[in-house]
C-alpha cells in the first residue's frame, strides 16, 4: 500500500458555476489541511496523555494535603490546602540547596560541553567529508548508549577498588578518588560530557554544513586565515544551534537524576538523597510518601527551569549581525 499524499477533492466541482468552485476549493483546502494535521495526532495524543494530563494532575494534587491521625495507621484524610505546599516548597532549604548545587554545576559543565562540541564540529568541518562521516559516527556512539548503561560503565571505571582509572592515575603519582566529595561533580560532569558531546556536535556540524561555501572562498581571497574564518564566519553562523543545544543542556542538567542516583548507590557518603532537585522530589514521593508535596516541588522546579531557559534564550538568541 502506498500513501497517496496528493490532495484530492471530495467531489468533482461543477465547472460552470464560479461560486461553487470557490466553496469546493475551500473545502478541498480544509480537507488537505486536516489530512496534514492528522500526521501530528500520534504526537499530540502522547503529549496530552503523558504531559498535559500529568501536569494537570500534579497541579490539582499540589493543592491538597493528605493527613493521618492517631498513630498514623488509619486512612488518610485529604483536604484542600490551597498554596500551603508551595509555601512549604519556597522555604525548603534542602530543595533550594539541591537546586543551587545543580545550578553551579550547570554553569560550569554546559559552556564546557558547548565549547568542546563546537571545537569538534569545526574540526570535522575542516576535514574531508568521507573522513568526517566516519568520525561523526564514532563520536555519536556514547550518545547512542542509554544513560543508565553509560552511568554503570563509568561507575565501574571510577571504582577505587576495582576500576582501572585509580591505578592509572597512581602511575603519575595522583591519588584520585572519583567518588569523593571533591571529585564527584567532575566524575558526573565527565560522564555527561561523554554522553552528550556527540549529539551537540552533530547539531552544530549540521548548521556548519549549511554555511554557503563561497563565503569561505571570498574570505580566503581577502587573506583570512582558517582561524579567522572559523571565528568570524563559522561561529556566528552556528550561534542559533549553540543556543538550542545550550537550552536543551540547561533543561537536562537542572533535572539531572539517574546519574547521581546511581552514584549514590556507590558513594552515599557524598551523594545524599536530596543531592539534586529531582532526587528530592523522588524521595518525597516514594520514600516519604507525600505525593502532594512532591507535586508542588515538581511544579516549582518546572517554573524555575522554564524561567532560566527563557531568560537564557532571550539573552542569547539574536540573529547574527
Amino acid at each position, binding site marked *: 500500500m502506498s500513501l497517496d499524499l496528493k490532495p484530492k477533492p471530495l467531489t468533482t466541482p461543477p465547472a460552470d458555476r464560479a461560486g461553487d468552485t470557490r466553496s469546493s476549493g475551500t473545502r478541498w483546502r480544509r480537507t488537505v489541511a486536516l489530512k496534514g494535521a492528522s500526521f501530528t495526532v500520534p504526537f499530540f495524543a502522547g503529549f496530552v496523555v503523558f504531559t498535559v494530563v500529568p501536569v494537570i494532575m500534579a497541579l490539582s494534587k499540589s493543592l491538597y494535603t493528605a493527613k493521618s491521625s492517631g498513630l498514623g*495507621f488509619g486512612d488518610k484524610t485529604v483536604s484542600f490546602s490551597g498554596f500551603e505546599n508551595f509555601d512549604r516548597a519556597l522555604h525548603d532549604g534542602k530543595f533550594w540547596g539541591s537546586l543551587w548545587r545543580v545550578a553551579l554545576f550547570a554553569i560550569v559543565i554546559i559552556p564546557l560541553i558547548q565549547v568542546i562540541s563546537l571545537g569538534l564540529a569545526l574540526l570535522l568541518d575542516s576535514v574531508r567529508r568521507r573522513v568526517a562521516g566516519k568520525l561523526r559516527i564514532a563520536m555519536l556512539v556514547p550518545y547512542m548508549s542509554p544513560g543508565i548503561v553509560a552511568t554503570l560503565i563509568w561507575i565501574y571505571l571510577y571504582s577505587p577498588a576495582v576500576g582501572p582509572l585509580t591505578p592509572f592515575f597512581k602511575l603519575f603519582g595522583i591519588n584520585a578518588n572519583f567518588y569523593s566529595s571533591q571529585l564527584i561533580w567532575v566524575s558526573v560532569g565527565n560522564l555527561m560530557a561523554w554522553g552528550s558531546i556527540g549529539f551537540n556536535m552533530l547539531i552544530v556540524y549540521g548548521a556548519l554544513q549549511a554555511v554557503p561555501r563561497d563565503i569561505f572562498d571570498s574570505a580566503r581571497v581577502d587573506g583570512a586565515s582558517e582561524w579567522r574564518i572559523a571565528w568570524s564566519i563559522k561561529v556566528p553562523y552556528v550561534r542559533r544551534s549553540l543556543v538550542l543545544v545550550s537550552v536543551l543542556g540547561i533543561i537536562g542538567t537542572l533535572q539531572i537524576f539517574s546519574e547521581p542516583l546511581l552514584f549514590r548507590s556507590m558513594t*552515599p*557518603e557524598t551523594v545524599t*538523597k536530596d543531592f539534586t532537585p529531582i532526587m528530592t522530589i523522588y*524521595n518525597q514521593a516514594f520514600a516519604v510518601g*507525600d505525593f502532594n508535596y512532591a507535586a508542588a516541588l515538581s511544579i516549582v522546579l518546572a517554573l524555575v527551569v522554564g524561567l532560566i531557559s527563557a531568560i537564557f534564550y532571550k539573552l542569547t538568541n539574536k540573529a547574527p549581525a
Partner: protein
Amino acid sequence: MPRNSRRAVLAGLALCLAATAVACSNDTGKKSAAGPVEIDYWGWTDIQPVVDKFNATHTDIKVKFVKQADLPGTATALRNTVAAGSAIPCLAQNFGDVPALLSEGLLTDVTDYVKPAESKFNATALSGAKVQGKYYGIPLGTGPTFMMINRAAYDKYGVPVPKTWDDVIAAGKALKPHGVQVMNLAGEDPSTLVNLIVQAGGSWYSVQNDAWKVDFLSPESVAAANILQQLVDNGLVANQTYQDRPALIAYFDQGKMVSLPTSTWQLTNYELHFKKTIGDWEPIDLPQFAGATKFATPAHGNALLVPKGCPHPKEASEVGIWMNTTKDGIDATFDKTTGAYAWPGAMPDPSPWIDAAVPRKLFGSHRSEAEAVINKASASGVDNWLVGPNYTGVFKELQDQWAQAVTKKITFHQLLENMQKFTVDDLKAKGINVAN
C-alpha cells in the same frame, strides 16, 4: 481508501480496548465454580520449587509465583496495583517494615488466621509481623546474627578474639598499625547502628496513650553510638559499599578487614568468592555490650506481606504459614548451587537446617564450631524494636546521617539528635500524634 483506513483504525482501536479490558479483568485470587482458590505470590527471589511443592501437596489452594524484577520493582508494582484496586496479589515478598507499609495502606489484617497458628512460630519472630497486637503479614523471623573473624590475621598479630564491643575497639587499635581494619561500616547501610540498639534491647519508637513517643537518645542508642564513635574516631573501620559486590568481596579477601557481623544467608557468597582467605575465618559469638547481664543477638524480624485488597486472606495466610513453619516448606527452598536452604527464621527449632547453612571450606578447621555459635545466636534473639508509620522516609534520612557520621562530618550523637528532630517533625507534619 480513507474510509477503509478509518475502518481499520476503528477496528484496531476496538481490538486494543478489548485487549485492555481482558488484561484489566484478569483478576487474581479468583475462584472458579469448583476449582481451588488461586493465590498469586509476588517476589523477586525465585521460590518456584516451594510453590510447586505446595501445589503438589494441596488441592484446595493453588499458588502462582509471579516473578518480579527486584525489591524496588516489587514495591512500585504493589503500590500501583493496590492503588488501582485490581489484580492484587495475595502474598508479596517483604520490602519494608510492617508498620510503615501499613500506614501506607498496603496491608490487610490477617489476625484471625495467624493468631491461632502462633505456636507454630519462633516467639521472637511474631513481633515483626504485628502492629498494635494485630497481624498484617506472616512472621518470617530473621537469620541468626553472629560474627566471623579472619582468625589467621588475628593470630598473626597476636590479637585476642573479641567477646565484647570494647574488645572489638581494642582489637582495632592493635590491628591498625599493621594496616588492618577491624570492621567495615558501609556508608549506605546504617544497619550496624540499628542492630546494636536492637541487641541492647532498645527502640526508637514506642506507643504511649495513642501517641508515638520518639526516643533516639535512649541509653541503648547512646551506648551504641559511643561504640561506633570510637571505631570511627580511631580510624579502625573501612567504608566499603555493599553495592559494589566484586570490590567488597575482593577487599574482604585481602586480609585487610578482619571482623564481620554476619548471618547464615551471607555465608555461601563468601564461600564462593573468597580465594586467598578461604579457610582462615572463624565463626564466633556476636560481641556483647560490656556489663550485659544476658547474652543477646539482634533479631528484628519481618513479614511475608498480605496486601490490602487480597480477596482470600485466609488462604493466603495458610500458604504463608505452610511456607515458613513446615518441614516441607523449608526443605523445598534447597539451593543446589550452594547446598543451603533459605534460613528458617520463623521456625522454633532451626537446628535441622544449620549444618547445610554452614559452608564446607570457609571456616576451615573451625567449621565444627559453627553449629554451636549459630544455635546460640538463634536462641538468644531479642526484638523490642518497633518502627513508626513514617519509618520509610526516616530510614532514608538515617542513611544520609549515617553516611555523614561514618565519614566524620558529624558525630553519632549528633546523628541521633538530628534523627530525633527529623522524626518528630515528620510525624507532626503528617498529622500523627506525638507524645514528645
